[in-house]
């Protein structure tokens, strides 16, 4: 929020002025009201730290991240470019595999990938050739203030409900802030999302112009259940569980009080492995037997597409800039964070020598698990990772510790600087659209670099400022 000389950055000036008019008590009280509001509305996620699963609200920090219009324009373009390339990559990988034939990506990286569903997803004809209905791309800002992509989420990115609820609570608790800012509204975004969803009507739909879409959830015990409820409600579609659906004659139906009703589009929020016990994990009780066959026959559409996981893991991540050049013949607008592959001998040696300065991540895990943050690690932890890497180098990547830009947070009656990242949501239908803003996540533990909510992270409202009298957002 501040420049080096202690003055607020220009796009934070007005906010800073208003903030100065509050007493600490005022702020504390408002902050409490905001936190309670989340609990009362049941906007919680489930923490599986004990057997029963505890419900918690994500801590909310009321100081927004403010993004000036020119910066946002760059992000928006960059995100569209990236998702476009990733979608072409998915289409290619499950069809001709031209990119492998041209040797741009090592074949074993795809074929050994546990999320590569060759058998289930190869050669499928899918509506609009679109595999990515909703993507969540995580960005960070480095010490120069430049945005960089940290991670792509192309399977079941969660958190969109928080974007809306953060804004809603913020408006109720701090109406003072909104008068003097021109902020891009989120109001039409969910109709955009609905439109994008409905554009995936399958080939054999009975009514292509009014397809019946549903959101498939694992159920109310799932950590992201609130997200599912919110999206289903706002899009006006049924929220269904696997047991509500049945496949008959390769068509999907939902069980209603008046009998069976045909379903055209399934926005699934359960993982590939659980979708259909006939085609994937036979143990799963969550899914719908026969679903894949119905999909294959063009009787139902499934978004996000099956097998997207092959494109969003941490190893493939490093190749996304190459994909953008390969498929689009463009230079990436938003850069990656530099990444070392530990399968390469040279890189591995370099990394093993400099572990205390690097971040090491398991390519298969997310959510802040199985990672080493060199500068914050003990000797023993570093040695542990050294062994892990030597044992299974292909399983790990390393990145330089970026001096992340920090934003102020207000917790426990005081301000302090915290690391933030930004999840940007990209919606894919007939065209790509980007939700103006996104979910800013903040590492509320002082000094911590991990923003994930299961590791004590919190949320912030994200304001994209309008350009002059721009009404486009």
């Amino acid at each position, binding site marked *: 929020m501040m420049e080096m000389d202690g003055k607020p950055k220009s796009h934070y000036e007005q906010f800073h002025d208003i903030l100065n008019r509050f007493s600490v008590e005022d702020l504390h009280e408002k902050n409490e009201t905001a936190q309670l509001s989340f609990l009362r509305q049941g906007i919680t996620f489930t923490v599986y730290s004990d057997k029963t699963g505890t419900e918690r609200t994500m801590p909310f920090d009321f100081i927004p991240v403010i993004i000036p219009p020119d910066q946002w324009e760059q992000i928006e373009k960059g995100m569209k470019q990236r998702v476009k390339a990733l979608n072409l990559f998915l289409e290619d990988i499950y069809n001709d595999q031209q990119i492998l034939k041209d040797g741009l990506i090592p074949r074993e990286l795809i074929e050994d990938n546990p999320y590569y569903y060759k058998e289930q997803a190869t050669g499928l004809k899918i509506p609009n050739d679109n595999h990515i209905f909703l993507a969540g791309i995580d960005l960070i800002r480095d010490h120069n203030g430049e945005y960089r992509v940290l991670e792509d989420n192309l399977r079941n990115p969660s958190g969109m409900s928080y974007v809306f609820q953060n804004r809603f609570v913020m408006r109720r608790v701090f109406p003072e802030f909104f008068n003097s800012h021109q902020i891009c509204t989120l109001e039409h975004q969910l109709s955009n999302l609905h439109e994008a969803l409905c554009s995936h009507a399958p080939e054999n739909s009975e009514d292509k112009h009014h397809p019946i879409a549903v959101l498939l959830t694992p159920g109310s*015990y*799932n950590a992201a259940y609130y997200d599912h409820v919110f999206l289903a409600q706002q899009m006006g579609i049924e929220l269904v569980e696997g047991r509500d659906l049945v496949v008959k004659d390769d068509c999907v139906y939902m069980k209603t009080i008046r009998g069976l009703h045909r379903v055209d589009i399934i926005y699934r929020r359960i993982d590939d492995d659980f979708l259909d016990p006939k085609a994937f994990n036979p143990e799963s009780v969550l899914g719908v037997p026969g679903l894949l066959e119905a999909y294959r026959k063009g009787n139902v559409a499934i978004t996000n597409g099956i097998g997207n996981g092959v494109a969003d893991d941490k190893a493939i991540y490093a190749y996304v800039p190459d994909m953008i050049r390969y498929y689009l013949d463009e230079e990436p607008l938003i850069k990656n964070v530099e990444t070392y592959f530990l399968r390469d001998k040279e890189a591995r040696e370099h990394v093993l020598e400099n572990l205390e300065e690097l971040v090491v991540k398991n390519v298969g895990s997310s959510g802040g698990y199985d990672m080493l943050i060199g500068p914050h690690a003990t000797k023993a932890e570093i040695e542990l990772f050294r062994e892990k890497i030597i044992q299974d180098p292909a399983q790990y990547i390393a990145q330089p510790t970026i001096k992340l830009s920090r934003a102020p947070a207000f917790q426990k009656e005081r301000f302090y600087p915290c690391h933030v990242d930004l999840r940007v949501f990209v919606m894919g239908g007939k065209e790509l659209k980007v939700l103006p803003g996104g979910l800013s996540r903040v590492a509320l533990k002082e000094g911590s670099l991990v923003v994930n909510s299961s590791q004590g992270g919190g949320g912030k409202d994200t304001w994209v400022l309008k350009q002059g009298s721009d009404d486009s957002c």
Partner: protein
Amino acid sequence: MLSRVADSLYWMARNIERAENNSRVLSARLINMLEASDTDAVAERDWEEVIEICASFSDYKQEYSTFNPDTIVQYLAFQEQNPNSLANCIGYARDNAKSAREIIPHELWECLNECYWNSIDVDRQYWNLKEVDHLLREIKLMSFTTQGVIESSMTRDETYTFIQIGKWLERAEKTARILNVMCEKARKEAENPEAHHYYYWLAALQFVNGHDAYLKKYPPTISAKDVLAFLITDGTFPRSIQYCVNHVWDAVKDMEGGKVSHYSEELFDAIERVKIEFDEMKIKDLQMHELGEFLDQFQDHCNNIGRIFSKTYYLIEPADSSVGVMTQFQN
């Protein structure tokens, strides 16, 4: 509407109604306790009836041999093993609401959720009566508020109807249960010429919040016949059995557009049979033991209607909370 969701709504309404009714019974008993000058033996019998109305007497007896008020309150309010404890009813109602969240009014969920968190705040081991009293009041208020939200903001569609039917059926059954227990008591006491039954019928009225309404219709003397007539067949008191049954009938008829189809025939038949029985029944002519039988039978009918209702609309059994627990990771 999805069958599973309809089922959740139906059970949500039943659990809210059950929590409210049991709160009122417990609350009325706690107040009576303050002025009971009777011997311990009488007090014990009074608690028996409360357990029988709010839970299952035989279940209680299996666990406990004493009738210590603290133990009973603990059992009725908090005990995890008692499926009808207030804590459980609220928990179930909230879970039901949660799995139908996308189609119920936002405030309905908020209200249930808040009541749930407040009930969690009471220490389940070291509570005192003041806290319990507060909780009972809060549950009753929650029930009133949720009904207000439902009445004032829900469109009169199937969602609304399923909630209403759950409420009416639960309410009818509870009134029948209260009267059944009281008839049984009165019948036993009849062997004792000293006893006066006044107390039972007053308690019955208090348990259904009907004392005020009764006094407006009947002279301020409380007789068994009048109370029974009032609580069984009064067409204007919203907790009389007949009132509730009529409303279930109307709701189903509305939902089916006044038509009996092949799939709804059994349901219409079952409700109609109960209605006819009421019409034929002359409360005032029945002996106490006949009434007891009638009420027993009525409770069976209620269960039967509930069962047929579930079958007609493809409802499923409420999910066991351990099923569907899933730990797959969502990124």
